[in-house]
C-alpha cells in the first residue's frame, strides 16, 4: 500500500496543472471577480443609504428650525399687534371721552345762557306787567307818587335773582 507508483504521481501533477489552468481562467477568475464586484456594490449601496439617511436627518433638522423660527415670528407679531390694538383702543376711547366732556360743557353753558336771558326777559316783562296793572288800578285811585311807592315796595318783595 505504501509503494509509490511514479506514473500515478506524474498523472496527478499533470492533471492538477491542467485543472488549475482551466479553472483559473474559466471558473475562479470570473467567480472571484463577481464576488468582489458584488461586495463593492453592497458597500457602495450601504454608503449611499448612509448618506441619504444623514441628508434626510439634516433636512428634518432644517425644517424643524424653520418651523421654530416661524413660530417665534408669529408670537412676536401677535404681541405687537395686541399692543397696537391696545394703544388704538385707548386713543379712541380717550378721544371719545374728551369729546363727550366738551359737548357736555358746551351744553351746560348754553343752558346757563338760556336761563339767564330767560330770567332777564322775565324780569322786564314782570315789571312792565306790574306797572300796567298798577297803572290800571291807580288810574282809578292813586296819584303818581303813591303809585311809585307801591311799585318799589313790590319790587323789593321780589326775589333778588
Amino acid at each position, binding site marked *: *500500500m*505504501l509503494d*509509490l*507508483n*511514479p*506514473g*500515478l*504521481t*506524474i*498523472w*496527478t*501533477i499533470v*492533471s*492538477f*496543472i*491542467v*485543472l*488549475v489552468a*482551466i*479553472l*483559473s481562467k*474559466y*471558473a*475562479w*477568475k*470570473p*467567480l*472571484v471577480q*463577481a*464576488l468582489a*464586484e*458584488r461586495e463593492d*456594490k453592497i458597500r457602495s449601496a450601504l454608503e449611499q443609504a448612509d448618506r441619504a439617511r444623514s441628508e434626510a436627518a439634516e433636512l428634518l433638522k432644517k425644517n424643524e428650525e424653520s418651523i421654530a423660527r416661524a413660530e417665534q415670528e408669529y408670537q412676536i407679531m401677535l404681541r405687537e399687534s395686541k399692543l397696537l390694538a391696545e394703544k388704538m383702543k385707548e386713543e379712541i376711547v380717550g378721544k371719545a371721552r374728551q369729546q363727550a366732556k366738551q359737548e357736555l360743557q358746551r351744553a351746560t353753558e348754553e343752558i346757563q345762557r338760556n336761563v339767564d336771558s330767560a330770567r332777564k326777559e322775565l324780569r322786564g316783562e314782570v315789571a312792565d306787567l306790574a306797572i300796567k296793572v298798577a297803572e290800571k288800578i291807580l288810574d282809578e285811585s292813586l296819584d303818581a307818587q303813591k303809585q311809585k311807592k307801591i311799585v318799589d315796595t313790590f319790587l323789593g318783595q321780589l326775589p333778588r335773582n
Partner: protein
Amino acid sequence: MPIEPRSVVDTLNHASATIADTLHTAGTKAVEEGGKFNFTELLDHLKDSHTVDLPFTHIDLPHFPPIVIGGLSIDLSITKHVFFLWVAGLLLAIVSISAARRYKKSLVPKGFTNALETAVIFIRDEVVLENMGKGGLPYLPYLLTTFFFILFMNLLGLIPFGITSTSNIAVTAGLAAIAFVMIQVAAIRAQGLAKYLAHLTGGVPWFLWPITIPVEFIGLFTKPFALCLRLFANMTGGHMVVLSLIGLIFIFQSYILSPVPVVFAAGISLVEILVAFLQAYIFTILTALFMGVGIRAAEHHDNNH
C-alpha cells in the same frame, strides 16, 4: 451457518451504498474461492488496479508499456486512481464553471452556487488573506483548486462504486510536490532569490553554515512530506476501518451480528464526510500557511530596511 455472500450483498445494498461497493468486490472474490473469506483480499480494494467496478460490470482500463528513464521505469497506464482523479477534476470543472457562468447572469447567487460561494469566500478570507495577506491573492486560484480538487476526490470515495484517489500515496505525493514548488515560488517571488538563499543559512555566522544549511534544506521538504502523508493516511484510514468492520461479518459468519458492523460502518462513513472536508481544508490552509511564511518574511524585511 454458512452464508451466501450474494444475499448479504443484496441486503446491505439497501443499508449502505458505500459498503455495498466494498462487498461487491469482496463477495465476488469469496465466491471464486469457494466461500472462503480472505480478509487481506478485502483490503486489496484499497489498492490501485486496472479495472473500474461498476454495477453488474466493470471497465478494463488500458495498459501502456512502461517508459524507462535511466534505471526508473514509469508506468503511465490509466489506473483506477487516475480514472477517479479525472472524474473528480471533471466534476469540479463542471460545477465551478457553471457556477461562474451563473454570475454573469446575475450577481445574486442561487441554489448550489451559494454553497460553492461560501467555500470560495472562506478560502479567500480565512485561508489566503488571513495567512498570506494581500500578497497571497495571486495564489488564490491555485489554493481554490487544491481545496476543491482534494475535496472532490475525498468525497468520491463515499459514493457507491466511487474510489478515493487521495488514499493512494502517489497521488498525495503529486499534490505535495506541487505544494512544495508553490511554497518555494511564493517565497522567491516575495523575497527575491538572494534573500531566499540567505534565509537558508538561518542567519547565523558563516562557520555554522555547514550545520544550518542542511537542516534548513531538509526543513523545506518535511512540510510537503507531512502534507502528503497526512492526507494519504487519513483517507486510507477511514476506508480501512469501514472494510474492517464489514470484514467482521465474514469472520463471524452470522446474520444476527451483521447489523452491528453495518451500523458502525455507516457511522464511520458519516465521520468520513467530515474528514473529507477537514483534510481538504487542512491541506489547503497548511499550504497557504507555508507560502505565507515566505511572503510575510519578505514584508518583515522591507519593514526593517
